[in-house]
């Protein structure tokens, strides 16, 4: 008997999306749709958190085993929904007067569903569908400010590179399908297990590299990252939040499932690939972030660097000398870091939106995201600046915020695995990243204010406060709630 109740959160979102889209055709007071969206997201989140301590996979296998509900999907689902909630609240302010806001909400909901589907998928087809659902929705979202050439340009670049990546991904999937005869990840794994020679064929190698490229586009690994800074910068800030915090994590969800479960037999190969990618990604991301003058673009590069840190998970998992405990710890750390980064980065982009909104309301400037405009923000908008500074601290991995804990666990796993060189590169990169976050903080707190105080939007402040409080609470969380959740999820993936 197939039990579809486990899919209730996703179903709820789809229904909400449909309601929002349809209602948008009729009602004029569209702001209410934002609240409906929020209710849908919160209800869905509640459904997921209800089962947060789910330890095993749901018995049922909906859609012929293409979809699975397990702690791994739950934690990613929660992550996407939290990001969705943050973005939705911010959108209440950002698009509260926009006549097309119904489209925004419905696409955002659909994108969230797509991400959640990816996290749940056990089959490459489901994975691909979820991937595309999220992608297509976000292509449109990136160009949502259609009068803004930057937004359109962002969407165009995102779309073109996204299309290229999808085709690379499907091409890779096609080879895997051809060689293993299945698109089910478990089956693929067992076929590889049965035919050890298969993993060494060039075709499968090509497929693997193409899949890495396909997922790497979402995760923004260097050199597949080049769309990311442009898109994050050009897209509306709250969409950037969704992209950097949600869509990027979707790439990781897919990659965790496919590589760690499905392609575990060829881990020597992706060890090499991910080692190169991780090191290059974090280094390039950080070094380029250092020289940025736009805060938004800096956050984009920082999110690339963070992708590099999370990519360390693959290296540790694939490292042949790594003990099981290190493998588990790495995935746990990766999930925690994805979690902390999702909250932190989403809120950071929303903060940028809030700040840009305030700056545009008072100052005559070309680029509200330019770091010079942040001068003296600590005085002009004390709450926003304070919360933004704390978010940056979390991203930089400075206690007492959850970003520190997650980085701590993640880097711990590299040492456990014995990857000393990688560990040193990671921590040095992490130290370097402090530089550009600190630069912004410096501007905010000891730059000379360029004008009188702003009126801070309570909605934005509320979003940021939620995120910051969440990050602080998770740091002090008694009984390491998130850790255990992530660890269970890690078990579900690594199986050890």
């Amino acid at each position, binding site marked *: 008997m197939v039990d579809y109740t486990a899919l209730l959160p996703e179903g709820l979102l789809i229904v909400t999306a449909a309601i929002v889209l349809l209602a948008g055709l009729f009602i004029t007071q569209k702001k209410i749709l934002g609240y409906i969206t929020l209710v849908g997201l919160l209800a869905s989140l509640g459904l997921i958190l209800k089962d947060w301590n789910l330890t095993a996979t749901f018995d049922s296998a909906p859609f012929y085993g293409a979809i699975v509900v397990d702690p791994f999907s739950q934690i990613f689902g929660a992550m996407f929904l939290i990001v969705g909630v943050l973005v939705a609240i911010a959108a209440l302010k950002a698009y509260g007067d926009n006549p097309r806001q119904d489209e925004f909400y419905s696409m955002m909901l659909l994108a969230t569903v797509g991400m959640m589907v990816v996290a749940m998928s056990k089959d490459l087809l489901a994975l691909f569908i979820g991937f595309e659902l999220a992608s297509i929705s976000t292509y449109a979202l990136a160009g949502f400010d259609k009068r803004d050439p930057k937004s359109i340009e962002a969407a165009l670049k995102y779309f073109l590179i996204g299309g290229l990546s999808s085709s690379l991904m499907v091409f890779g999937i096609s080879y895997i399908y051809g060689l293993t005869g299945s698109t089910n990840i478990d089956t693929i794994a067992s076929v590889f297990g049965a035919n050890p020679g298969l993993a060494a064929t060039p075709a499968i*190698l090509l497929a693997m590299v193409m899949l890495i490229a396909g997922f790497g586009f979402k995760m923004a690994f260097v050199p597949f990252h080049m769309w990311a800074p442009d898109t994050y910068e050009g897209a509306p800030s709250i969409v950037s939040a969704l992209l950097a915090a949600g869509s990027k994590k979707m790439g990781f969800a897919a990659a965790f499932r496919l590589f760690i479960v499905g392609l575990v037999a060829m881990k020597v190969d992706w060890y090499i690939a991910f080692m190169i990618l991780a090191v290059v990604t974090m280094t390039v991301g950080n070094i380029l972030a250092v*020289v940025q003058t736009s805060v938004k673009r800096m956050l984009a590069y920082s999110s690339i660097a963070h992708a590099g840190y999370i990519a360390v998970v693959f290296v540790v998992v694939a490292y042949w000398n790594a003990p099981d405990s290190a493998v588990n710890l790495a995935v746990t750390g990766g999930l925690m870091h994805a979690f902390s980064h999702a909250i932190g980065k989403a809120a950071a982009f929303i903060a940028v939106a809030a700040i840009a909104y305030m700056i545009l309301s008072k100052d005559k400037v070309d680029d509200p995201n330019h770091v010079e405009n942040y001068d003296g923000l600590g005085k002009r908008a004390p709450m926003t600046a304070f919360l933004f500074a704390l978010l940056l601290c979390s991203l930089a991995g400075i206690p007492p915020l959850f970003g520190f804990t997650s980085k701590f666990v993640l880097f711990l796993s590299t040492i456990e695995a014995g990857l000393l060189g990688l560990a040193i590169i990671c921590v040095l990169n992490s130290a370097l990243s402090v530089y550009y976050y600190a630069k912004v903080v410096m501007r905010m707190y000891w730059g000379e204010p360029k004008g009188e105080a702003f009126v801070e939007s309570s909605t934005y402040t509320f979003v940021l406060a939620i995120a910051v409080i969440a990050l602080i609470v998770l740091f002090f969380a008694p009984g390491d709630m998130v850790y255990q959740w992530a660890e269970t999820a890690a078990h579900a993936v690594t199986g050890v």
Partner: protein
Amino acid sequence: MMDPNLTTIDFRMYAHWIVLLPMIGFLLELLIGKYWWRKGGMFATLSIFGSMIISYGCLYNVYVQHLGFWEYSWPWFYDGIVAGFVVDPLSLAMVCMVSFVSFFIHFYAIGYMSHDCAKNVYFAETALFTGSMFGLVLANNLLQLFIFWEMVGVCSYLLIGFWWHKPEAAAAGKKAWMSCAVGDCLFLLGIAMMYTIMVKQGITSEIISFNAIFQNLEHLSHEALFGVSALTIICILFMCGVLGKSAGFPLHVWIPDAMEGPTTVSALIHAATMVTAGVYLIARAFPIFLAAPNALMIVAFMGAFTALYASTLGLVVNDLKRIFAYSTISQLGYMIAILGCGAVLGVASVAYALFHLVAHAFFKALLFLSSGSVLHGIGNIRDIKEMGGLLKGMRWTGYAMLAGALALIAFPLTAGYYSKDRIIEDAYIYATHGGDLGYMVWIFLVLGVILTATYTFRAWYLAMTGEPRSYPAIHPHECGFWMKTTLVVLSFFAIFLGIITGGGKDFWHFLEETFVHETHTATGIYPGLNLHEIAHLGGNTLMHHGAHPPSWVIYLPLLLMIAGLAIATTVYYKNRIDVSKYVKKDNPLYQILWNKYYLDYLFKDIIAEKIIMTVFTFWDVLDRYVIDGVVNLLSWITIQSGQVSRKLQTGIVQNYATAVIFGVSMLMILVIMIRGG
């Protein structure tokens, strides 16, 4: 040993109050002195008077009542480091002298400093100095001695720079400290070494107290460092400290400059007390020096050389106070030299040195105070070329200075006669009984006599007799009650100290008991100490019985003194010989003396300014551009690489697509290459 007389106070129990009283005086003077009698001076003077009473009480207990020597201590900070006080003839002689001289100099200063606005600070500092000096003298261990050794150095620094608004004064203070610091760091190192070798012997309590060291000298003498006897190295390091503090060659250069301070300070610190601390250190640590091979030889040579060297410089200086400063250096040289002769003479040399020290304290304090009176009287002119004929206007001062000068040149029956001539005679005995340096010490010391007589009376004649050579000198005004009283008291002791002490014999006998196990007065405090055995450890052989030098040796210094006096009289009083043809800039000998053998030039201009400043500048460059340069370079590289590589982000979407395809290809190639290899 006699029973202590219970009806009298046993002052020995209160020896630590000798130190503490002036310290309390310091605090009171500093905090509230300004608001009391004459705006300062009362607390310091009274507290030192209190110390003086206790000191003389102790002397009475020990010398008259024969209550025995006394030593006691409290644990201080680390295990085995104690705060201890020792009352024995050596420390008694010093505390009695210091308290007496210091009290009278304070007395004098009440008049001398009466117009100074920061008088309380002055008295606070001198009180602190006096207390520290007591602490140094009464210390029963090396560390405490060193602590107060540094404290007197600080006070010296502060008091030299008391008139801080004069740049020369501030610079002189710094120079004094720096010269001493060179010696002191080596002294400290010596203490560290001594501590180490003592710990090695398994000593755990009072590790570096003199008593413990003396007890273990036999074991210690087997210790070697770098192939040399450890004791010798330690003694040499101590000697470096002595050279700094007691102005031995080549670290004496600070003393003439130190005359920038108030004259009372020169009298108290740079003549009577602080500079003698070095002599006292050698005397106190005498058994260690005796047990260390060759150590006393170095002491004797450095002392004798300094004695002669400084007296040559005294000949050409025109600054009244500096003449006496050089004479101080010279006289300290005599004391150190005779201590060095202890390799043959034994404990007697300590007695001779200490007697000269005490006598010197009186007459040199007198000389300085009377020159202070001169300065006071003619408006702070210090150049003797601008004085002349002062005797008419200031008789008290003039005759007081004469008394001091006579004592200094060892005119018969004055204190200096008994103390200094004895030193010279015994230096001869040292030579004849196989002293390591032979006759060298004696010759140096004897030559010093004639020079001393010449320069001392050159100063006196030029200042006091003849015609006034400047306007202020025409109408000098005599000093007042406070200063006059002091001059009289000190003159008395400068003249009669030798006679009072029975030609010094009483003093010597008393002092010689210091390092003797059983004395005829009391139990010594160093049980089992046998200087003869100790001397053998250091390869020295002490004389067993007294010896008398031939009579020509006894009369030679006297004759030379008269000769020197005659030269001075001829040239500077009778003006029979015109020295100006020798005293010219083109006379190389005069040049050398005038430039103080270029030692100042070497230290200040070459070492301090050229070499060290060059090193510092280099260091700054190193710090800024090399060590910090690496740090900045790394950040520069990071930022530049970012600036360069951001250009790759062209903004054209085809290039991004190219990057993706390129990435796929490269990844493929790298995976295959690395995996295949």
